[in-house]
């Protein structure tokens, strides 16, 4: 009986509402932390697992040796590789596709690669207008590697002692 009366009084005096407004009011004056993406960005770990890249050696030779370990380890079956013997006798891919609509960004491919060829870069903002746009082919991935090599290399060096 007593509790009922208390509830009625509380609701009449808008106690809950005022409590809520107080929280809002507190944030109204607090320091703002909204990130103005894309002008501003949150800090990223060097281990961030974003868009893939195929790295190259400084002399321009692709690193990948078509061992197909990344393809085998990929839990989402997102990687497709075809390989052959290149004219100079080395083992090379003729096709290296990553289907980003399948990829779950687990990073296993990077971990399995014996020559640090496939890596996941920090790039997270990429898009496609059609579904097919998200099928990254070998030239696209190599281009990524070319473009971001400095950062990739720095990140891997920093992380090396933990691996």
């Amino acid at each position, binding site marked *: 009986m007593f509790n009922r009366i208390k509830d009625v009084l509380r609701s009449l005096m808008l106690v809950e509402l005022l409590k809520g407004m107080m929280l809002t009011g507190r944030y109204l004056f607090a320091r703002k932390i909204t990130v103005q993406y894309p002008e501003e960005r949150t800090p990223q770990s060097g281990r961030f697992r974003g868009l893939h890249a195929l790295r190259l050696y400084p002399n321009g030779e692709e690193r990948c*040796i078509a*061992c197909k*370990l990344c393809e085998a380890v990929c839990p989402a079956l997102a990687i497709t590789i075809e*390989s052959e*013997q290149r004219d100079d006798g080395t083992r090379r891919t003729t096709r290296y596709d990553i289907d980003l609509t399948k990829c779950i960004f687990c990073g296993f491919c990077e971990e399995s690669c014996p*020559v640090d060829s496939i890596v996941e870069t920090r790039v997270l903002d990429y898009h496609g207008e059609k579904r097919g746009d998200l099928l990254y082919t070998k030239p696209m991935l190599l281009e990524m590697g070319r473009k971001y090599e400095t950062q990739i290399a720095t990140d891997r060096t920093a992380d090396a002692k933990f691996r």
Partner: protein
Amino acid sequence: MPTIEIDDKVIEVKAGSTIIEAADSMGIPIPRFCYHKKLSVAANCRMCLVQVEKMGKPLPACATPVTDGMKVFTRSQFAVKAQKSVMEFLLINHPLDCPICDQGGECELQDIAVGYGASGSRYTEEKRVVLNKNIGPLISTDMTRCIQCTRCVRFLKEVGGMMELGMVGRGEHAEITAYVDKSVDSELSGNIIDLCPVGALTSKPFRYSARTWELIRRHSIAPHDGLGSPIEMHVKGNTVMRVLPREDEAINECWISDRDRYSYEALNSADRLTTPMIKDNGVWVETDWQSALEFAATRLNDIARNNPQDIGVLVSPNSTMEEAYLAKKLAQGLGCGNVDHRLRQSDFRLDSKHIGTVWMGCNISDVQSMERVLVIGSNLRNEHPLLTHRLRKAVKAGAELSLLNPIDDDPLMPVAHKTICAPDAMVNALAQILKAMSVMPRYAGHLSPAVSNLIDKVKVQSGPQSSAQAIAESLSGSSASVDLVAPRAAVLLGNIAVHHPRYAEIYSLGEAIAELCGASFGVLSEAANSVGADFAQVLPNADAMNARTMLESPRKGYLLVNVEPELDCHNAHLAAKAMAEAECVVALTVFKSEALRDADVLLPIAPFSETSGTFMNMEGRVQTFSAAVKPLGECRPAWKVLRVLGNVLNIPGFDFDSSEQVSREIFGGEDPSQLASNRLNNHLYDSGVRDAARVNDETPNILQRIGEISLYQADALVRRAAPLQKTKYAVPLAAYMHHAQLAQLGFQAGGAVTVSQGNGSVSLMAQIDDHVPIGCIRIAAALKETAALGDMFGPLEIKAVEIKAA
């Protein structure tokens, strides 16, 4: 029988067996590299070290014979420590190559290293590097990976018959190498890829193209010779990536020939026909199945309405039983009895004299336990690469091999006696053997009067040229060193005998010889399904035309099932002419072929990898297989094409939904092997010899052709397998003759000559080959370059091309 104990399990084993054999039979794993159950024991890898009670040192399980009461520990601390040390030694010089190594994922060293290797290496010195050797177009080498187990060396020596690889140097400098500048040319060479426990020897055509874990294994049967080796097709997507053997002790043990291994390269060759085509006013146009089948049916029907005998049906002996049977059924539905699969045979006088289906007369595995063998008319390694290995085993175990052949090619095993003579002298040579045998006291009076009258006037020649007496004595067991009174013996006919223009006599005499001395007698059938097609009665009706007469008196219409007429038939010239003159040629074919230029409609059919079917091999074994991949493009399995063609032609009884239904009809619902064992019979009705024989012919002194089919020209598939065509067996085409013959004719080696047979002639180069008897010229058949020539065996003219003075 000694009783031993391995890891506390007791087993009784055969005296003289080794610890590893005992362990294998119990399913106890012992790591090993150099040991292989089919090869001699080398005991040089030391991976199989085990602890044996009361022995101070670990012993190699592969080389230690068991003794009664022996106690073996394979997993004790002592044994494992020994095994681990060996592993460490093996890895000292082994490169960290797995990611680029084609063996990765199916590597014995990788696997065993997971169990026995350490996680890091203590070896910091420089590793050794061994230069790669180029050993031919089939096998690629990475010799740094070699662990010197010498399996490859032992295989080539013991199974291949020629030691083409060897180990040179010692210790750190030991390496496997071929002879200087020589490749490995064995026709069984591909097996060393399977044997090599590491990635030192891998397949060159397959190199770097796929990983073992991507491949789906589908079972099939090799379609190139009468052996019918069970194979495994490794498929990625819809492509056959490679072919490996399956193990069947009764057929192929665990090997396959290179022909069976690499012919898959033709399956996706650019030559494949993938859409039906019709010739419209001399121009090939692609069309759809409906119109192609209707076109074919109408044309065949038009001819059949006039006279069904105007149609000829030729079926490749490499077709499945279902395909061959349906072709026969179709012909019968049209009222035509001209059906044949014996395309390269030229003598059909024995037709209707056979009691049953001709086969090899014994089981494949019996060959190795024969004590006396006479092989008549066979270039063994060319025709039956893997069966030759069984013979080699027999010879190694002490059998005497005799040969009667028109070519003196080395079978890579000791031959006890041989008669090498011109093809037209073979019948006489055979008669001499029979004569020599029949006068032996043991067999006196055993010969039927018909046969003995026949060979009445035959004189057994003596001297170095003829070994008739010696062969007869050897077969009967009464040779100079009598060690056997009644040896297990076999008389076997090869392809040359079957293609021979006097096959009837050769067969009759061979059978008579075998009967006299109690040997088994048979024919080593040429193609994957020769026996099966015979069995399914894909043969001309009693008064109809056979494969030769069908071409000699050209028909108006032909139905070809997987046949390239000028390459697959005995007389290339006749075949091409008949096709050119025919009104209508309907060809079911896997490939677009120049040999089918005169066809009117091409129906694309699936090769063996894309269809289901049944083969019956030379020992009468019925083997069914299913498709490994989907048919390419618009191709369809030939049995389906024939079935629909039957429907379009309104022939009753063509409502099959699966190839199994067809084979059930062939076997009448009975057990195939039961039926086969009832029907296989090499005997002739008694009149066989008498009617057929003209034994005592004087051999006229004319030049003859020996038109053998070389190893990698045998059928449409191998002809298009690029890697095989790059091997040493793709002998350059030339007119090969004995050097004395060359001198007698006044030619120069390397000089141009014109060879003519009948109306056709070709220009070739004259070359020396002392394996060819005098009076003969060896000119390969089944080649488009010699398609203008006629019979594979027969008279020819040869003259030098005159060089006109400028």
